């Protein structure tokens, strides 16, 4: 029978939640790396038992852990992320130049075909690649050095490459998103890059539709429609239908267009999920009601999904990498909160169940659909 494996990164360790294809009974294993911040875990599509984990603390820096048995045991691999050449400066919060300094890995994106190849989006914003199973990491410095890097500024959480989209067919096109610089596209396997932010408007900027400087929170895409990309920006839910060449707003009737997480149904490329958050200062759901919003029309028209989610006195956040969708026939949707809850729906969001209620604050949720 098929099954699912949830990979949950938290402020104080990693957890692995497993269930069979019915998704009724769940086992929680962990914490792994107790006391460490686990920003992200992700499994290899080419070898699902290979999982990457970003382990860090402010005290002892960054480690990269790899499991080759589905998360039961882990081994550290290489943790040296050296920028290519002299990295120069980006802008600090006050607009002054600030040296590029590695802080942590925000996101791993494993290759769909080679289990030894994995990309790492890092803070300060850059993209690294390993082709030897994580032993060594090389920067794809064309991203940081394409020209606008000295003008990038950090978002409140740091200046991070938090989203990496690889071509679903294994082609050379890639996208990354950086807070607070925007979206960048490569058509040559990450060697050269160009901004892909036309149509984004950020009222906080002096030039609100400038080429870079937008605080893009997350991107999502369906593999059957690689030119269509959905975006949760700091404010605004956006979509592009031309591979990031232009963007249009599809926030529509959402109660607020601020948020972090966004994802796409595994079988319906125009069905999109977001979790609206009240504002960029409060960072909790409007009216204390935790609601996932689903659009079956690719945006603009949204319905609140509330069955099984707390509808009073709920003041948690859902971070950008903390939503995931499995590919079983009845699509499963999962998300974690800063309150330590992990919610699951096995019916595409119609009803929800808490798989865990008292984990540490959840940084990320990924799901693997297992044969």
């Amino acid at each position, binding site marked *: 029978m098929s099954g699912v494996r949830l990979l949950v990164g938290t402020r104080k360790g990693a957890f692995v939640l497993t269930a069979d294809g019915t998704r009724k009974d769940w086992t929680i294993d962990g914490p792994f790396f107790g006391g460490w911040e686990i920003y992200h875990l992700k499994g290899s599509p080419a070898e699902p038992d290979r999982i990457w984990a970003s382990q860090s603390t*402010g*005290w002892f820096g960054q*480690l990269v852990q790899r499991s080759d048995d589905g998360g039961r045991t882990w081994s550290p691999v290489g*943790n040296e992320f050296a920028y290519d050449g002299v990295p120069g400066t980006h802008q600090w919060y006050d607009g002054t130049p600030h040296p590029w300094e590695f802080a942590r890995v925000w996101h791993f994106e494993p290759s769909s075909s080679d289990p030894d190849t994995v990309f790492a989006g890092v803070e300060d914003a850059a993209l690294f690649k390993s082709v030897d199973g994580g032993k060594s990491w090389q920067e794809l410095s064309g991203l940081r050095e394409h020209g606008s890097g000295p003008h990038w500024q950090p978002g409140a959480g740091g200046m991070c490459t938090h989203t990496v989209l690889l071509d679903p067919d294994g082609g050379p096109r890639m996208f990354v998103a950086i807070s607070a610089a925007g979206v960048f596209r490569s058509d040559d396997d990450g060697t050269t890059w160009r901004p892909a932010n036309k149509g984004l408007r950020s009222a906080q900027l002096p030039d609100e539709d400038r080429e870079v400087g937008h605080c893009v929170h997350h991107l999502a895409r369906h593999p059957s429609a690689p030119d269509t990309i959905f975006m949760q920006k700091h404010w605004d839910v956006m979509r592009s239908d031309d591979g990031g060449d232009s963007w249009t707003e599809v926030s529509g009737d959402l109660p607020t267009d601020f948020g972090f997480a966004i994802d796409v149904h595994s079988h319906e490329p125009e069905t999109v999920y977001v979790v609206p958050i009240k504002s960029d200062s409060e960072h909790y759901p409007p009216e204390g009601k935790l609601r996932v919003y689903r659009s079956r029309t690719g945006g603009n028209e949204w319905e609140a999904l509330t069955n099984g989610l707390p509808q009073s006195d709920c003041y948690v956040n859902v971070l950008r990498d903390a939503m995931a969708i499995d590919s079983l026939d009845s699509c499963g949707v999962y998300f974690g909160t800063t309150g330590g809850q992990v919610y699951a729906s096995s019916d595409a969001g119609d009803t929800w169940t808490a798989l865990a209620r008292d984990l540490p604050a959840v940084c990320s949720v990924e799901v693997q659909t297992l044969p």
Partner: protein
Amino acid sequence: MIRVVLPAHLKVLAGVSGEVELEVAPPVTTRAVLDELEARYPVLRGTIRDHASSKRRAFVRFFACKQDLSQDSPDDPLPEAVRSGSEPFIVLGAMAGG
């Protein structure tokens, strides 16, 4: 024999439970001790000091013989009591955070 005390998280990473004992060729300095520690336990590379610059990480401190050695040059000789093994060289994580 040089005795090294690691903070709890680094003990877990290194797979040790008590003190670490290292043979360090003279001159016995902070740099020499950490070089030997990282050679014995490669997983600790980058956790105490920066990979490239070897600069001490900001929230890591070094103590020995009731002295804070964190700001000393990494090439200064360590106290005789550390060199003789009667006192440990202590790597400490700052008490901060939550």
